[in-house]
């Protein structure tokens, strides 16, 4: 891509601004520095209507150093990872990856407005960290009981359907190498903390 030679160094050691912090926490070359505020991303986004800010607006806020505002925005949590913005961005900004970065930062700093989305991620991860495998449906019922107990009744028909069709698992399978996996994840989290 044309912007390759003016890219910022991907491995920023001591971030001096919020923008640099975001770039440093995103794997590889995010090209966030090169955003020209064209708005292609927002125009491509299937969740756009429900987002507090379009991705473009969010990137302007990042550039302006509005850290708390940015991390409080629901935008990253409404990102469905469709990668439309990423393939259409004229500046090759890794938009979807940046959304993941912002979620991680918001969780770390504990500044998000609605706990539903982070909670879903945490519940999911908890299963993976204890079993090595997930079971999306059981997880969904768990999540729903916690956040929308009345919604469960609406969903009951679907739940019964999935059970009678033999598609509902009640526990994930546990992998054999659970000890090894735990050791790997613990080490990774140690490295994460110093990064």
């Amino acid at each position, binding site marked *: 891509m044309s912007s390759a030679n003016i890219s910022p160094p991907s491995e920023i050691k001591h971030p001096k601004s919020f923008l640099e912090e975001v770039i440093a926490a995103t*794997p590889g070359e995010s090209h966030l520095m090169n955003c020209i505020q064209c708005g292609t991303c927002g125009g491509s986004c299937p969740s756009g209507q429900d987002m507090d800010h379009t991705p473009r607006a969010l990137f302007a806020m990042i550039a302006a150093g509005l850290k708390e505002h940015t991390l409080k925005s629901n935008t990253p949590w409404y990102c469905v990872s469709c990668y439309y913005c990423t393939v259409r961005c004229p500046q090759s900004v890794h938009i979807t990856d940046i959304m993941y970065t912002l979620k991680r930062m918001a969780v770390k700093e504990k500044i998000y407005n609605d706990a539903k989305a982070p909670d879903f991620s945490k519940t999911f991860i908890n299963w*993976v960290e204890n079993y090595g495998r997930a079971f999306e449906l059981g997880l969904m019922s768990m999540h729903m009981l916690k956040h929308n107990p009345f919604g469960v009744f609406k969903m009951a028909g679907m739940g019964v359907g999935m059970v009678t069709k033999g598609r509902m698992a009640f526990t994930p399978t546990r992998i054999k*190498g659970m000890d090894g996996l735990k050791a790997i994840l613990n080490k990774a989290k140690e490295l994460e903390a110093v990064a």
Partner: protein
Amino acid sequence: MKYNYYPGCSLEKNAASYHISAMAIAKPLGMEFVEVDDWNCCGATEYVSLNLIASYALIARNLALASKNEETKQLVAPCSACYLNLRKCDSYMSESPTLAEKVNTALAAGGLSYKGGTLKVRHLLDVVVNDIGYDAIAAKVTKPLKGLRVAPYYGCMIVRPKLGQNGSFDNVEYPKTLDKLLKVLGAEVIDFPLKSHCCGGHMTQISEGTGYELIRQLVKGATDYKADLMVTLCPMCQLNLDAFQGPMNAYFDTNYNMPVLYFTQMIGLAMGMDPTDLGIGAELVDARPALAKIEIEVPEPKLVIKKPPKEALPMPSLPEEK
């Protein structure tokens, strides 16, 4: 040809029919799948939302295990989300030495290691159309799906984003491989404008209105084009379009009735296989009326009523920390 095979959690249970049908067509098409020993979940889109290094280490454990197989360096995933995660991890580990170093330090704690670029990560559809090829498949078609109008649905993560040198095996905005494959099978394929739009992934869990609207648009699109059924290649897409079609109808007060099958099931049917051997019958939106159109009889599905184990009922709490 031999491949390492990474089924992913969905294929163990909820999308078992995808796994069964993939296995059923493998042999006659000359694909040999070796399941990655003791693979773990790839973390979907959730792990990376909380931890960066740990999420890549989680994925990389699978790459490390698969790369031990000296017989093949190909790794195939039938789930689009798994495919993207594995592919992205491989590609970023090649591009970013810092990431690769950290991930490998973590892997070492479990006695493993992985070098970016060792494996070639492929989606099952890519393998079927590009390694086996349309001609070889056409030669195996004994019962063309003539008279069946199908909407090919790719979803997002199978074609996007472009990564590394190979980019994406199909066009990122207007993919065509599944269209072509279904034509080879004899079906009437509609030019589905929403074919690579997103079904919302886990969004039904976070904001039901947003999630259901994405599902509604897709199902409505296929219905407006008078498709008999939609064809998918991802267990999460199938779950959203099929299992969540009922709740979506309830939410919007609509009554769409669009069956959703896997491309592997379509291949099997066109090869004259028995629908039950392909896992057909596990859909929540009944696919039998659509298949009856082309004289494929699917027996009344057997209902499995299995009580959940006592200690395993889904409860609104997290598993206890040790």
